[in-house]
Structures are given as C-alpha cells and as structure tokens.
C-alpha cells in the first residue's frame, strides 16, 4: 500500500487561538483511519484543514503526491477529496438525485449525461434508490446521513472524510453505516472517519488515531490505541491507577 495522504507538522489557528499546534501523520491507500478524541481535540478542525475550509499557518498536506495545503476546497474535490458533515447539510430544495448530481457533475468533472449513471450508482450504494426523487428536506436523519455519503461518493473521491456519521443514530442504524463503510472499503476508497462511538471505531477501522488538544496522542492498531493508558485517561476519563 502506498501513502495517499501525508500531513506534515500542520499548525491551525483561529485568530490567536491555536487549535492544532503541530500534527503529523500518514494514511495508506485503501485504509480506514479512525480519528477519536475528546470534545475540543481538534478533530473537526483537522477535517476542515484537510478539505480546505481552513488553511494551516504552517506545515504541509500532501495528497496523492500533490501539495494541497493552500488549495481551494473545489480544487481538492476535483483531485478526489470528499467529505460528509456531522449535521447533514443537504440542498433541501433539491431531490436526492439532484443533490448527488451537483457533485457528480461539477466535482467529478463530468457532463450531466455522463454523471447520471454515477449518481444512480452512488444512491443505490447507500440504499436511497427508492427515494431518489424525494426532496432532501423531507428525509429522516439516517437518510440524510446516507445522502451525505452518496453526495460525497458522487464526486468520485479517492479519500472520503466522514464526520461523525454515526452520531444521533440508533444501534441498528449505526450497524447500517458500519456495513456501508465496509462495503465502500472493498471498492478501494480510503476513509478517514471521525467518530465518538468507540465500538464502531474498533470494529471498522484499520488504524485508529487519538487526538488531544490538537496533538497526536496515539496512532496505531485500533485495539492497541484504545488500550493505551494515555488515551483512556484523556478520552474516557480513566485514571492509570
């Protein structure tokens, strides 16, 4: 497996407040990397930096051999970075199909006619085919999350960034999401998944990374990471003794 994403000592700040004071890690192609950490650990800020919504003040982000540190979000999308939101943000006045079509045409650089089959494929993959003509504003939370994934898939991503897709879902729904991620993994997409549900992270990821106050606390095998005393103390509030 080759390295598809290399984060080299990035520093991210909002004004004078430093959220990530230096973070480095690598992601291998086809891998599912889980990212955990307590609230305020900088997980979403990391996601925003990877996708181009915030620009690191220092350091580099190398994606598929290209330095994307200062690249605009739409160009990153064209290169193959797709993202979902923790709180789904569909274009509510559009149908499921139309939502996916925007990314499948503009994001993946296809004409509308060429984008259509890819849209349907993405919609089928997430189990929304029956609702493809339903307005996004009328979907349930689970379906909105599915739509988020379908929309990102429509852009033909090499890396899919999932931001707490399991949040707010029932246990059965979380299992659905896990199954979907497992299926996506078989297609060769690299996945970076931020989540609070530890069980899901341990079961579904190849590597697990724990952040604390914007720094890397532990990176490695999921069980190994969860068994790390520092992770347990910071994340679960379990004292070493």
């Amino acid at each position, binding site marked *: 497996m080759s390295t598809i994403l290399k984060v080299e000592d990035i520093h991210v700040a909002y004004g004078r407040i430093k959220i990530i004071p230096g973070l480095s890690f690598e992601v291998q192609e086809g891998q599912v990397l889980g990212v955990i950490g307590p609230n305020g650990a900088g997980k979403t800020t990391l996601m925003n930096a990877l996708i181009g919504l915030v620009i690191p003040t220092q350091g580099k982000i190398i994606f598929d051999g290209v330095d994307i540190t200062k690249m605009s*979000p*739409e160009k990153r999308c064209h290169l193959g970075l*797709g993202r979902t939101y923790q709180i789904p943000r569909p*274009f509510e006045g559009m149908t499921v199909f139309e939502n996916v079509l*925007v*990314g499948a045409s503009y994001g993946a*650089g296809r004409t*509308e006619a060429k984008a259509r089959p890819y849209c349907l494929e993405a919609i089928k993959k997430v189990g929304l085919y029956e609702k493809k003509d339903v307005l996004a504003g009328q979907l349930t939370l689970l379906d909105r999350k599915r739509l988020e994934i379908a929309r990102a898939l429509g*852009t033909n991503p090499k890396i899919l960034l999932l931001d707490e897709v399991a949040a707010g879902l029932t246990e059965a729904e979380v299992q659905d999401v896990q199954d979907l991620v497992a299926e996506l993994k078989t297609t060769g997409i690299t996945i970076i998944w931020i989540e609070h549900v530890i069980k899901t992270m341990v079961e579904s990821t190849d590597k697990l990374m724990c952040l604390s106050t914007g720094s890397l606390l532990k990176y490695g095998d999921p069980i190994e990471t969860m068994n790390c005393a520092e992770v347990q103390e910071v994340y679960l509030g379990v004292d070493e003794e």
Partner: protein
Amino acid sequence: MEALIQSLIQGVLLGGLYAAIGIGMSLIFGIVKLTNLAHGDFLILGSYISLVVTSTLGISPFLSLIIVVPVMFCIGFLVQNTMLNRVLAKGAEPTLMITFGLSIVIQNLLLYFFTADARNLKSSIALKSITLSDGIRIPVIYLIGCIVGIVIILVLGAYFKKTYQGKAIMAAADDLEVAQLMGVNTKNIYALAMGISISTAAIAGVLVGVIYNFYPTSGSSYLVIAFAVVVIGGMGSTYGTLAAGFIFGVAQVLGAHFFGAQAQLLTGYVVLLIMLIFRPQGLFSR
C-alpha cells in the same frame, strides 16, 4: 366600471414590467446575498446601449437585444469576477460601497457620453393598442412588457430547475461551503448569476426605454421600483417577484384611479410599507 377594469388591466400589465425590472435584483440577492445598488443604473445602461445599437444599425430596439443582452451579460460577469468576488468574504458593506460607486460611475459616464438630455427608444409599437371596448384598451407595449416579464421569470425558473448549471447556482445559493466541497467553483457561479441578473435588467431597460423617456440619472427611480418588488415578493424568490410586480403595479394604478394620478406612486409605497410591517420577510420568502 369600464374605467376600473381599464385600471386593473393597466396595473397587471405594469406589474409584469415591474417584475422584469426587479427579477435581476432578487436573483442576485438570493444567490450572492448581495444588494446591488447599481441595478437601476445597469438597467438604464442597457437602454443607452440599445440606443447606440438602434441608431447605428437602424434596427428596432427589440432586435437590438441580440447585441445588448450578451454585452450586458459580459459586463455583469466581469463586474462580479473582478470587483465584487474579491470583497464578498469581508461582509455586506464593501459590496454595498462598490455597487454604490458603480452607480455613480455609470451615471457620470452616461452624462459624459450622452449629456443630460432626455432620450427614448423609438418603436412604432409604443403607440399601438388593442381595443376591447369603447373604454377598455390594451397598450401593446405594456402587454409586451408584461409578457416579457412573465417569460423571463418562467425561463429562469426552468433554468434553475432543469439544467445542471442552474442546479449548481441553486446549490451555491443554498449552502456556499457545501457547494464548494461538491466541486462547484462558486466565484464563477456568482459571476454567471450576475451576468444573468444584468441581462434581465438590460431587457427591462429596453422595455422602459421604449415606454418612457430616460436620462443618465433615471436608474435611481428603477432601483426603487426593483427594491419595492423584491421586498414585497421576498428577497431571492423568483415567483415572489412576479406576484409582487402585479401587486405593486395594481396598487399604484388603483391608487391613481381612486385618488388621482398624483397618488399613484404614493399608493404603491404605502402597500410596500404595510407589507414591511406585517410580513417583513416578503410574501414568498422561506
């Protein structure tokens, strides 16, 4: 009774024209969240470009739209791309200042090149009317203005709904950040939207240029009409603009019918004021 019916017809026809005047402003507010204070001046610029084209080529003002619309589209696209896009992230004030500045520049350029003399676009249609009965006549130019207003709005509605470029514009209007993450170049989309907005202003400019006299400073009065229509309809609502055009037009003409010609403008703005008090978000705003 016939006089009242004539007034109602006149109001509806005027409303269609008002919708054509306001739609570009509504569009750009809905998509870019920008209040274009130069909207009326772009409209009058369209009238003057049509004047140049008609006098140079000897064609009718309506035929001049073949040249006027693409020229105005390019102006709108360039203004958005080279000026407004640069300051969008800095809040609403810089864009207001730029469009205010553009308004002054356009007025003074027109004064420089065309003087302050009254102009109009000559068309034989301006004098024609369809007689329905002794007291009821439909002025053809107002009928055309109304039909054009309705057609512009229907075409725009279909463009946003049916084309994938239109969907990208709607996506950017709905959620700029997500649209960017979907690969949409939002700056180009904004420029495209401004091009369309200014093109519709130019079409309205040719219509008002045939109906009324215009001067380099006439844009301000059309800006006020556009504001009224956009506020009543709900800022950003395409079909709201059409409905608001009719309400504003009918209110004005009925005001003139019942209280005299001097009350025409007053009645329209009283309706606007009532609207602002009871439904400040406009009729069709979400």
